[in-house]
């Protein structure tokens, strides 16, 4: 069973072309196990990335060093999945 304990989903909003270039480098660079929920970068819409717990500090540092704004969209993916599982069990019972 694959677990997502401590994984977060970051919503990253590029504001400049420089930000976009930096994010493209991030995409091509070190394998941090990032799961891009939306692909491509633009200044018009944010991109959501699931970041494994082990990479969280590195990615957040990377974004902050480059002054790229982000918010935490999902604080703990596993907690979300556990809630889903409970809901599905409940639905099955119904």
């Amino acid at each position, binding site marked *: *069973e*694959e677990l*997502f304990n401590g994984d977060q*989903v970051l*919503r990253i909003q590029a504001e400049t072309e420089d930000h976009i270039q930096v994010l493209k480098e991030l995409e091509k660079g070190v*394998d941090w196990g990032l*799961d*891009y*929920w*939306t*692909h*491509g*970068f*633009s200044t018009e*819409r944010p991109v*959501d990335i*699931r970041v494994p717990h082990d990479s969280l500090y590195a990615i957040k540092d990377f974004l902050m060093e480059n002054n790229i704004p982000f918010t935490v*969209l*999902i604080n703990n*993916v596993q907690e*979300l*999945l556990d809630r*889903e*599982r409970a*809901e*599905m069990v409940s*639905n099955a019972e*119904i």
Partner: protein
Amino acid sequence: ERKTKSFNFAAYHDLETIYSFMDTLVASHPDLISKVKIGSTYENRPMFALKFSTGGEKKPAIWIDAGIHAREWVSHASAVWIADRWHCRKEDELPIALRFERLTYIATDFKENRAPVPSVLSQMDIFLMIVANPDGYVFSHISPREFHRLWRKSRSVTSNPNCPGVDLNRNWDAEFSGPGASDDPCGEDYRGPSAQSEIEVKNIADFITSHGNFKSFMTLHAYSQLLMYPYAYNGSNAPDQPELHDVATQASKALNSWHGTIYKVGSIFHTIEQASGASVDWAYQRGIKYSFAFELRDTGEYGFLLPSDQIVSTARETWFALRYIMQYVSDHPY
């Protein structure tokens, strides 16, 4: 469920239940709905499309698929609800709640959206594939040993044994292997080794090609509320861009009319990103002019899983947009 009337549309279901629902739907409406097997998946699951037809040979047709990305569950769930809409041919056959909604809806006097589906079906056949990626969908469900709800791709073996699966929406024979797709098997948008290397894509492409008379191709995805048209592979305008943009804009207004959900409209390239090997480009390049991709209502806050109490409202607003496009296609033969 033995009757579609008792089917719980406000819940997510596994593949077996959806396939069972399809059988029930077909059995209940044999004169209108049939099930077409278009092939089998990598793991040998059958791939079915529902055919809605009032008869006739090789009538012009509309293709709609959902769930090519396995984890986008509200697209499958919406397609289930939508499948159940077509057989409602008379007002008095509609569930009471829907009758009330329709009356309310008509009162808004939004003429474009009032066209009844039967008039489309008198001109065209409609093919609806509720689960375009059955292996991925099954994998994304709980089983005794697995829980891969965030799975997106197919399930075929790749050159990296640790990273199975291909992004089926980068695997079509449309500028395959260009920018906007990954050549890394571990990438979420891995394009695969060659165009149509994935049997799921090949089956759909072969079916549409051999049919030869599709006039519209629509694919339902679920993330971030977009209604898009070609091209995805680069930023140039498709020859029919003005018309496609207008149709998509009107469809998005129809969608918006029910719950106020706001969709962004544009080409895939300009709306999301560059993406080579995408299905709508494949369809458009083969002469299927009215080619659209939907990203259904999902803010991301639930990780590709809208709370199940939003399934029906999402499906219904999507249906309004689909119905507008279907009517438009029917009224503009080419």
